[in-house]
């Protein structure tokens, strides 16, 4: 008798190991995958309260990280916020759901400048969230004259005071720009030159970082950093010694947009969430909190004048003249991977 009981106990134990995590849910859960530091998190709680939907919020550091995780499957995200070229790639690979715009009436607030862009020409898959540029954030006390060119990042004067971005498309992109090429170059010669330039620059670089750049620059740990415009706005607000510039060679103009990946169980709720993010009040709070530029017409009107008139956050046409939007490079991306691995392990 005792032995029989013991057997049953062991079988139960085995089954219970398998059964863990298969509990029943009666509340809808939305899995949101966004960039780090890219939302006012109180907005999420407000959504949970208003619609009785639970949000599991998760963050990524680069588009490539996000893509690999979603592509590998098993992550079950309902909402993603990637950038332009990554959205194009995901559309081409059939990874995204078409949106039902009748569920997203607040889409009307999005400035038409941000509609029908190359990555989603018919506005079928994405709703713009934020936009911005890549540029140089510098400390006026540590850099004698205002930088105008990417070349300042190769200036030996600033050895060990330069922070580069640990994101392959951005870092290789600005190097191509510095050399006078397109940041969407597929030319092996030009890419090789960019690689050599990055290797040559490496001894001058203090560190390759992404989100840590803000703390470091605010604390005055480095003189120059490659940053996204919104991070620059945030840092300047915290430390008035800092300033941001889009170098004269031109830079990257980017758009981040909200999309729904294929395989979601809660498309309707995900669209509710997108619509919620496009409510004027919510879009305003997000833009104000994270410092990036909003494509939302009403939210922009509400932002303080000194932000919307600042050329950091809302650059003028002439600042953007030489800027390019990333395009998906397809199979050449492998080459970018190789270059970046080589630079970082040099």
């Amino acid at each position, binding site marked *: 008798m005792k*032995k029989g009981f*013991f*057997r049953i106990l*062991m079988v139960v*134990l*085995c089954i219970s*190991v398998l059964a863990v995590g298969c509990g029943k849910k009666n509340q809808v859960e939305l899995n949101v995958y966004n960039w780090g530091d890219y939302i006012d998190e109180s907005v999420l709680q407000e959504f949970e309260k208003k619609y009785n939907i639970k949000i599991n919020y998760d963050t990524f550091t*680069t588009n*490539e*990280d996000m*893509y*690999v*995780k979603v*592509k*590998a499957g098993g992550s079950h995200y309902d909402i993603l916020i990637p950038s332009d070229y990554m959205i194009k790639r995901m559309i081409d690979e059939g990874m995204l759901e078409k949106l039902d715009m009748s569920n997203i009436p607040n889409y009307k607030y999005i400035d038409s400048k941000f509609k029908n862009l190359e990555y989603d020409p018919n506005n079928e898959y994405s709703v713009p969230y934020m936009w911005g540029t890549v540029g140089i954030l510098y400390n006026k006390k540590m850099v004698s004259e205002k930088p105008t060119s990417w070349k300042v990042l190769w200036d030996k004067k600033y050895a*060990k005071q330069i922070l580069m971005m*640990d994101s*392959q498309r951005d870092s290789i992109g600005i190097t191509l720009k510095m050399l006078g090429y397109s940041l969407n170059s597929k030319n092996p010669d030009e890419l090789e030159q960019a690689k050599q330039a990055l290797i040559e620059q*490496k001894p001058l*670089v*203090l*560190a*390759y*970082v992404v989100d840590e750049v803000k703390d470091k620059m605010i*604390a*005055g*740990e480095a003189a120059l950093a490659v940053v996204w415009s919104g991070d620059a706005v945030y840092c300047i607000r915290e430390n008035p010694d800092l300033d941001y510039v889009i170098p004269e060679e031109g830079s990257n103009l980017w758009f981040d947009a909200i999309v729904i990946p294929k395989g979601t169980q809660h498309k309707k709720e995900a669209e509710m969430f997108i619509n919620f993010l496009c409510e004027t009040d919510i879009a305003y709070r997000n833009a104000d909190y994270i410092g990036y530029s909003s494509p939302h017409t009403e939210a922009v009107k509400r932002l303080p004048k000194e932000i919307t008139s600042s050329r950091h956050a809302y650059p003028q046409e002439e600042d953007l003249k030489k800027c390019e939007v990333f395009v998906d490079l397809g199979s050449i991306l492998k080459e970018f*991977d190789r270059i970046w*691995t*080589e630079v*970082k*392990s040099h």
Partner: protein
Amino acid sequence: MKKTWAAYPYIFWIIIFTIVPMGLLIYFSITVKTPTGTIISMDNFRRFTEPIYLKVLARSLTLAAISTVCCLLLGYPAALFLSSRDLRHKNTMVLLMVLPMWMNFLLRTYAWLTLLERKGLINTLLGKIGIPPLNLLYNDFAVVLGMVYNFLPFMVLPIYSVLSKIDHSLIEAAEDLGADPLRTFLKVRLPLSLPGVMSGITMVFMPAVTTFVISRLLGGGQYTLIGNLIEQQFLTVGDWNFGSAISLMMMLIILIGMGFTSRYEKEQEGGGLW
């Protein structure tokens, strides 16, 4: 009968969490994705022998070896001190040694970031006595420091446990026969403590050679170690096949290392935490 039934959950556990993942790792490492489908190939291993990756491997092994030696040099005297018989409050001392390990590993490493920064605590204090700020962060020194700091207890504890198990009458006998303290140490304590030293070395070297957090945080992303390379293949590049091949090569290297130490430990009574 009872005993075999009791083992089932563990066998089940090992199959799910060791055998199956190992099988997947091997499968991924010997296959390559091509546009026409997945084919069996040794390309991943061949790629690992390219100079750029061998350089990463060499750097990882060197940094790990340096950290292990530092841990040994710092840890052995500490263990000797802790095991000495006339030490008061011995348990408190051992507890203090282990105490930092109760805190999260990441937090402890982040703490070093703020200590080593150019405007961090150490440089501020140095500045007070007129020394210009030093570049302490984002170099070999910072990475080795992070490894030594985090893994030192793994060196001290096995040595300590072997040393405190040494039969004291052996030491007394040596002293009775006229050996001075140095000779007693060299002829009695040191040889008897070697099993502890061996397990200490394995326990420090293995995590040190595969770490990617320490090199990422304290190396500023410019110190690609083998752990970073593997992480990059899985998380950024998405080349699981190559990532698996590197992981397997790494396991092979560790296995060879383990072979050496365990052969040694068989001869003596093994000590330590294994």
